[in-house]
């Protein structure tokens, strides 16, 4: 049977309750009649021969690039950079796409007699990956060949010895990126394009940059002018990255971009009900839901978290393209939309979301309240093209436990941001002006970022700026089932049930609002007409 496209359901009397994610769990909610539920398109067919497709892409590049073997020669300096732990979500079953692509690139490099090869995880200001995480992403063969010799590194945005200032764009944006990558004869970037925001010039201009560079596009002004940042032509975030990327290319950095897309086969068979339409749940789905709900309700949150973070997604590659950055990214973006796009007619007064246990910044970690806000208002709110799914002045209702819990090793500056900044203000502009620099330059946070597995001191600020467009657009944000103190700290309204949330929302949108639920994950993009 052919793949079914995305679908907008109108809820009626016969509609069974709708699944909502609720952090490390899920629940069923009965939505009012007339509500809309947006379901993701079914997964595209995986490439039959992924290794063959990768080789084909490397030998038949797009844009102004020679085939990869023609760019490789003995005595050259080759740097292979790759996306970090934040992609894909959840982490995919082995072999990871990065492993497949990098092995193929290394085969060609070996054939060409290239000796000076270094691998760099493009972390930007994210936490360093652990050995296990690197082994999972790259495979043991690659890890054991490079890591023991110091040839597998992770980008350090605070290492002045290994950063190179290339200059400023016409807009005055500083460009400072990884020196090894910038001074190589060829920089091969291996990307996973989970959503339309990823990839393109953003890969190098963000993934390999320093705070000095990143602050030009990670700020409230850029974020409120990115509508949305999933729609590159209307995203100031991307405009800035594109200016930087072109400057980097003009500065002589030769980039061979390899981009891949995934299907939305997000959960393993034991959790397949999470990506099915409720009225199509069979006996096994219903039993799985009942058993997992009952079990998750009995175990402590910490154990539930461990269970969920052990999930490996059966994502499969649907396309791979290589060559010049912009030519490659145009095709990649089309492929992402082909998988994830859903046509939606008209905006809504209320948008509801069930937030899952994972976002790009808490893989193998804890979803703290700031990340809850970022996932709901930053990521899910922005999964649109055209117009936001919810109208200006509308209400966003999230479902998540929002516990005030933090991973002290991964998110140390988040704790202080939560205690010292959000207690003063939730206004992104004021936060940017009054607090950002002290966190960004704090030597303790820098030390933890460079030597431990901590996100950079400025990272919680970026998460908050990620919410800026939604905060400006929405009339109210309500979190159902969240810790009331934590929810209020974020500047949102707590509600104990969906009915309470709708009652609270009626103060803003009136007694008979329209309601739309985004049934994600799996990830989808609303093309709102």
């Amino acid at each position, binding site marked *: 049977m052919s793949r079914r496209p995305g679908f907008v359901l*109108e809820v*009626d009397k*016969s*509609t*069974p*309750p709708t699944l909502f994610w609720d952090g490390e769990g899920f629940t*069923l909610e*009965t939505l009012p009649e007339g509500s809309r539920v947006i379901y993701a398109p079914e997964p595209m067919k995986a490439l039959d021969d992924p290794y063959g497709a990768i080789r084909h892409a490397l030998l038949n590049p797009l844009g102004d690039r020679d085939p990869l073997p023609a760019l490789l020669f003995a005595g050259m300096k080759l740097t292979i950079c790759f996306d970090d732990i934040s992609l894909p979500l959840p982490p995919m079953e082995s072999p990871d796409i990065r492993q497949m692509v990098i092995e193929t690139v290394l085969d060609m490099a070996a054939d060409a007699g290239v000796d000076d090869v270094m691998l760099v995880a493009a972390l930007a200001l994210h936490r360093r990956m652990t050995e296990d995480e690197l082994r999972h992403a790259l495979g043991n063969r690659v890890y054991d060949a490079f890591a023991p010799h110091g040839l597998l590194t992770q980008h350090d945005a605070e290492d002045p010895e290994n950063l190179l200032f290339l200059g400023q764009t016409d807009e005055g944006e500083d460009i400072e990126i990884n020196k090894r990558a910038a001074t190589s004869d060829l920089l091969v970037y291996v990307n996973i394009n989970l959503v339309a925001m990823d990839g393109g010039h953003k890969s190098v201009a963000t993934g390999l940059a320093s705070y000095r560079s990143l602050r030009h596009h990670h700020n409230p002004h850029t974020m409120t002018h990115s509508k949305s940042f999933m729609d590159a032509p209307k995203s100031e975030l991307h405009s800035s990255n594109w200016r930087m990327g072109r400057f980097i290319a003009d500065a002589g950095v030769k980039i061979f971009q390899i981009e891949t897309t995934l299907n939305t086969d997000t959960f393993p068979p034991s959790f397949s009900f999470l990506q099915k339409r409720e*009225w199509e749940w069979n006996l096994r789905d*219903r039993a799985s839901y009942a058993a997992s709900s009952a079990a998750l309700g009995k175990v402590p949150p910490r154990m539930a978290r461990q269970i969920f973070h052990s999930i490996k997604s059966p994502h499969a590659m649907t396309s791979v393209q290589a060559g010049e950055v912009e030519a490659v990214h145009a095709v990649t973006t089309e492929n992402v939309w082909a998988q994830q796009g859903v046509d939606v007619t008209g905006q809504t007064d209320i948008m509801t979301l069930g937030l899952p246990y994972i976002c790009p910044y808490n893989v193998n970690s804890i979803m703290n309240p700031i990340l809850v806000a970022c996932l709901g208002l930053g990521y899910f709110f922005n999964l649109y093209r055209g117009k936001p799914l919810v109208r200006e002045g509308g209400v966003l209702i999230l479902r998540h436990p929002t516990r005030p819990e933090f991973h002290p090793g991964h998110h140390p500056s988040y704790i202080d941001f939560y205690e010292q900044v959000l207690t003063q203000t939730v206004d992104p502009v004021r936060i940017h002006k009054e607090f950002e620099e002290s966190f960004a330059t704090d030597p303790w946070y820098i030390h933890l970022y460079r030597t431990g597995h901590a996100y950079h001191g400025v990272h919680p600020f970026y998460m908050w700026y990620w919410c800026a467009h939604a905060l400006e657009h929405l009339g109210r944000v309500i979190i159902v089932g969240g810790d009331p103190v934590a929810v209020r700290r974020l500047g949102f309204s707590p509600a104990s049930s969906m009915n309470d949330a709708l009652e609270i929302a009626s103060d803003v949108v009136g007694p008979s609002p329209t309601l739309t639920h985004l049934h994600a994950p799996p990830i989808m993009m609303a093309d709102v007409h």
Partner: protein
Amino acid sequence: MVAGGGSAGGGVGAAAGRLMNLARSTRFPLSAPSWPSTVDRPDPDRKIGLDYDHEWSRRYPVRLARAMVMDNVARPLARVVAPATVRGLEHLKHVEGPVIFAANHASHVDTPLLLTTLPVEFRHRTIVAAASDYFFDRTWKSILWSFSLAAIPIERSKVNRRSADMAAELLEDGWNLVIFPEGGRSPDGWTQEFRGGAAYLARRTGRPVVPVYLHGTRHVLPKVAGGRDARGPGGSGSESRRGGGLRRSPISVLFGAPLTPDEGENARRFSERIEASVAILAREVDGDWWVARRSVSRVDARPGAELSHRGPEAPAWRRAWDLDTPPNQVRGMKRWPE
């Protein structure tokens, strides 16, 4: 006419109630999900919903079996569980069938209770329009309702030519039709706006519409909206039990004078007239026909006033307050704990 009941009936009612509670407790995801009526089913071979072939349920042997169950099981049980006061049967004496019975709808027991109060010349020659997405979404349900109620599947969320053609053909074949023009059970006992199906069929077939008001059925088997939480604040308290199964309670069934569309009267106008007739019957419950007529006259005297039984535009508790009160005491109720 008031049918009596005793303590034995209380036992039967309680057992039936427990069964109903058990059935209700197995909701999705423990039971299979219902199918949204806005979504097409992928497998047309399943032959349920509107596609269900119910012709067998009107063959003579099946009608005979249904009549035996109706007369020997359903009617005695109804007398015990829901002793009925029936008014207006005289209107059916001189009407020439087949007719369309258009009734308000507050409970799942409306259909069997209405059928069991019909005179015998109508009772065994009446089909029931039932929501295809609810009563015909499983094969076993389709068989059950086709047999027990002579139900036919009707699309209730939108106008459907197939539904209308089928109902019209059966009327022309001499079958009376029970239809609930509200399209679903009332959430609070007040009547919802009537849809145009009954009026359309009457105009199309020329058959009269008999308005019917069913009073008190929501106390026999209340509608439980929104799942377990809606049953009451306590998990095991009396409120949570009261939301569910059958309870003994008296009811009233009032038949109005048959209506036929006037010359040039469109279906919408005729539907409003049917709804108004049911509203008049509702007013007869607490008094008599004359009191109801006079109150109606007073309402009609106000310019622009509409006659309906939809209740005040007020918060839920006020609407409930204005409607009626459940019977204070039901015969057979235990007066002290055993």
